């Protein structure tokens, strides 16, 4: 099977500060991909560059056989590469229904709008109950659900999740993890940044350890890396 996404030699940053130094990852060949590593070392920057929020300074990004380097976020979404950013910062004054409607803004997602809406409602019954409620009145976990729901409305071929369980209470976190696993089982490949090792290992066995804006270690499926080694990387030896 071909790679869905391959990033090679990507250099990017903000202003004069370079965060990514020629980073490269592949996704799609071995199922889901997990990214981990210390904060402030480029995970989020990498995802922002991939989804077109940030113009890379060098390197290339190929998605679904097409070079998307430097394309606008809009056309990247239209290609089916959908990014759920960190911190569930959505549209606070829109209702859940409004958000879902916006999720299907892309022309390629319109025909699937009704079906995707049912899918989201089935995945997050909690949201279906309060369709007309404003996002700002929701809890952190519920907002994260809306974020993921909006992404599903965009009819993704590949879904990027940046720390979906950050700062959530254990109970709602379990609920969310289950939903993410369901999405994956339904056949949407994922790229996930996550601090929760257990969850990440449950989701995928293809991992990248990102440090200093580069891939320090790649763990491919079948690599015999002990759980404890991964834990050591997580917590910096």
């Amino acid at each position, binding site marked *: 099977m071909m790679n869905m996404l391959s990033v090679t030699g990507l250099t990017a940053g903000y202003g004069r500060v370079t965060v990514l130094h020629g980073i490269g990852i592949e996704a799609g060949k071995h199922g889901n991909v997990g990214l981990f590593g210390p904060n402030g070392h480029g995970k989020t920057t990498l995802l922002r560059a991939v989804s077109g929020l940030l113009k890379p300074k060098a390197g290339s990004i190929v998605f679904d056989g097409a070079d998307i380097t430097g394309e606008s*976020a809009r056309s990247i979404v239209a290609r089916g590469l959908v990014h759920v950013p960190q911190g569930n910062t959505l549209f606070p004054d829109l209702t859940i229904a409004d958000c879902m409607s916006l999720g299907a*803004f892309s022309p390629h997602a319109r025909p699937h709008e009704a079906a995707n809406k049912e899918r989201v409602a089935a995945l997050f019954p909690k949201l279906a109950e309060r369709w007309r409620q404003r996002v700002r009145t929701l809890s952190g976990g519920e907002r994260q659900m809306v974020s993921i729901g909006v992404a599903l409305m965009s009819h993704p071929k590949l879904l990027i999740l940046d720390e979906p369980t950050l700062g959530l209470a254990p109970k709602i976190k379990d609920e969310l993890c289950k939903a993410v696993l369901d999405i994956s089982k339904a056949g949407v490949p994922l790229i996930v940044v996550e601090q929760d090792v257990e969850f990440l290992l449950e989701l995928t066995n293809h991992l990248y350890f990102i440090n200093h804006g580069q891939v320090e270690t790649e763990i491919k499926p079948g690599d015999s890396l002990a759980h404890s080694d991964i834990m050591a990387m997580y917590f910096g030896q």
Partner: protein
Amino acid sequence: MNALADILFGGLFQGSLYAMMAVGLALVWTTIGVFNFSHGVLMMLGAYFAWQLVDWGLTAALAFPIAVLLMAGVGWVLQATVVRPLIGRANLVLVVVITTLAAGSLIENGVLELWGPRSKQIPPLVAGNAMLGGVGVSLHQIAIIVVTPIILLALWLFLNRTRLGLALRAVAQNEDAARLVGLNVTMLYGLAFAIAASLAALAGIFLGGYRFMTPVMGADPLLKALIVVVFGGISSISGPIFAAYLIGFFEAICSYYFGLYWTPALLFAALILTLMIKPEGIFASRSRGLA
């Protein structure tokens, strides 16, 4: 009875004009987070476009919509030249104040050069006069009072009932998230400015139909529109609309009881008092952050 009719009519009329102006200002603020200080000049330019078209022999029914459409284009161009390139600057609000002021000065002096300082007048929407509750009023003013709420309602429906309107509101709230669902942020910024400029042009046509036009005719309406959005809160469209009518009535009552001279002073005093008590405006529940 006469007093009541006077105040009612005056309030509705002024309120309509203020609402037309303020809504455009608020729309640009909520979507882009900048204040367009050339809004008054756009109003003036719209009126001059209409005048020129009528002067060329077009009927008002044709000239007015064309002028409004032309102004949509002007708004778009204005946004693309003096606003969009600045997006992302740390002191965006401030810099846009100065670039839109400068653009306004450019247009104002251009109009002066092109059409001269002599005041002009465009035909009223509806000619003729009527007696209403013992007060003589022009049908043009009645038409404005009737047409304005219809246009504002259409705008409200557009923003709240269509996907494009929804997109405009979304961009205002979170630009990154808007990009990530595939919204064309650049296009939406242009659209916000185009709509605002069209509404300003309409206000200009309203005003030019019963008062003489001059190149500086937009200065006072801009000022009033600013006051309206401060009163109404700048984070929504409905807030300024209510505030516009409220201020229209406030002025009508003040000028009836205290005279025209003291009305502006009273209005500003009320404005400052309002801001001290409720800085985010009377009708606003929140304010757009200004980092």
